[in-house]
């Protein structure tokens, strides 16, 4: 593998950086023939590095080329349908979309706060020790099994339409938005409780032993020692589920709420385009991407504080 000739040959498929890869590779074989092993190795390594550059740059170039082709294909049909300039630059359309998106934001922010607490309650219930707590564990397990198994769209239908139609006391005359929040909290509460549970179980039992040996009760140990460590550990997967929740707020449009999806549909219908869907997608990305980056930073800072050089 001294000369990385195969890698360089593949790299040639990804211009332009494949060319220097091949040049270095050829130089490496010449030096190897002349017995200059160290220089040959050095050239070989450069051939290898350039091969990786070539693949990386080449794939980017091809991707951009493919997207451009897609936009221009069929006499600019894709560009027209999804990125209709007239709609994308229409201030009134954006205003309407933002108004709808505000509903989605309210739904996911409130649902996330509920899920954060509710899922922890469920996780702790599932982990209660001893035979006396078996019924509670069973109840929590049934809840998790059911709401993880049923598609969120169905839960939204059942909660949103069913509770109102059956006129269930108290919740019977909630607004559609409140139903949407309940439905999403139920579904994601089940998911996130499993994330919490994994986190709690990942805290080594010696931590519990240390806390209990100091005289702390079971609940004090959970509250002050186990759960704080578990929560820190599960922030990344928790965040993953929250992004899922944010996107699933699009499903509440089936209840007839004037959210971003329904507003996009109206705009599209009246203008014969699909550009408003692109606008909705952009709005979601504007929330999820900064959210992810912010939390990555938060986790990094937290680790820098508690861990020394690990």
């Amino acid at each position: 593998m001294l000369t990385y000739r195969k890698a360089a040959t593949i790299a040639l498929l990804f211009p332009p950086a494949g060319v220097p890869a091949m040049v270095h590779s050829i130089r490496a074989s010449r030096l190897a023939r002349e017995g200059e092993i160290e220089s040959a190795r050095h050239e070989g390594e450069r051939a290898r590095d350039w091969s990786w550059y070539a693949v990386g740059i080449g794939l980017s170039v091809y991707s951009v080329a493919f997207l451009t082709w897609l936009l221009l294909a069929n006499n600019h049909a894709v560009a027209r349908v999804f990125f209709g300039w007239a709609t994308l630059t229409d201030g009134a359309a954006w205003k309407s979309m933002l108004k709808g998106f505000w509903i989605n934001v309210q739904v996911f922010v409130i649902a996330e706060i509920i899920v954060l607490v509710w899922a922890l309650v469920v996780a702790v219930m599932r982990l209660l020790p001893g035979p006396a707590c078996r019924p509670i564990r069973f109840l929590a397990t049934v809840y998790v099994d059911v709401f993880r198994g049923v598609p969120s769209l169905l839960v939204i239908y059942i909660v949103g339409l069913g509770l109102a139609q059956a006129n269930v006391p108290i919740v019977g005359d909630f607004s559609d938005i409140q139903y949407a929040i309940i439905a999403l909290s139920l579904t994601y509460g089940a998911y996130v409780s499993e994330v919490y549970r994994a986190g709690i179980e990942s805290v080594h039992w010696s931590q519990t032993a240390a806390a209990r040996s100091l005289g702390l009760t079971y609940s004090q140990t959970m509250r002050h020692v186990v759960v704080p460590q578990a929560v820190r550990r599960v922030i990344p997967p928790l965040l993953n589920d929250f992004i899922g929740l944010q996107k699933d707020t699009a499903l509440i449009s089936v209840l007839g709420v004037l959210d971003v999806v329904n507003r996009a549909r109206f705009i599209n219908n009246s203008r014969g385009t699909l550009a408003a869907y692109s606008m909705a997608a952009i709005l979601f990305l504007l929330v999820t991407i900064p959210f992810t980056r912010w939390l990555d930073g938060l986790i990094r800072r937290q680790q820098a504080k508690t861990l020394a050089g690990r």
Partner: protein
Amino acid sequence: MAFLELRDVHKRFGSNEVLRGINLDVELHQVVCLIGASGSGKSTLLRCINQLETIDGGEIRLGGDRVSGRGIDVDVLRREVGIVFQSFNLFPHQTVLKNITLAPVKVLGFTKELAEERGIALLKRIGLEEKAKEYPDRLSGGQQQRVAIVRALAMEPRLLLLDEITSALDPELVGEVLNIVRDLAKDGMTMMLATHEMGFAKEVSSKVCFLHEGVIHEEGPPEQIFEHPQQDRTKAFVQRIIEAGRL
């Protein structure tokens, strides 16, 4: 009646009987060392005394009160019996000071101010008061273990159990931890320690117990166990330690 009494204590993990009838008396202010090969039951015995493991037979009494079996309040027992572990087990998400003050505040009901004042005083005693605001992972192993000892002491236990507290430390850090134990022994703290530091055991203990296959095979003052062991197995064990240069 001794301060701590163990009568025919049995403990089994599945089919593996780790303790097969332990009888032991510990008087107030005594330092008792448990020695013996790995797997002889030293750690299990200590963990049984503060009920981190429940015993399968026999009885444990502390200050005359039965502290094993049904109907005992383990949380009350554990306030009086502190334990320090081989792997420190500090709480990594809390500062050193918070590690020390958590139990006094939550269990003994001290105010935060009082607990912190006492915590700082304890840290001063071991020369780590400037680490009060640090997180445990930033400390060396020796420093962490010293903090773990102080965390147990903050509960003012009547009995302190030390479970191979220097076994996870680099050799050059063992001394600083043993110095604290030495000071505690001088102050009259009642202690039971499982240890492989035979020189130290010989120096500080009032009584040494040699555990073998789940029973106390021989017990006596350190001079007897280390210099004139009576039992063949004790002789063989001490002989191996001397050959390994550990005494």
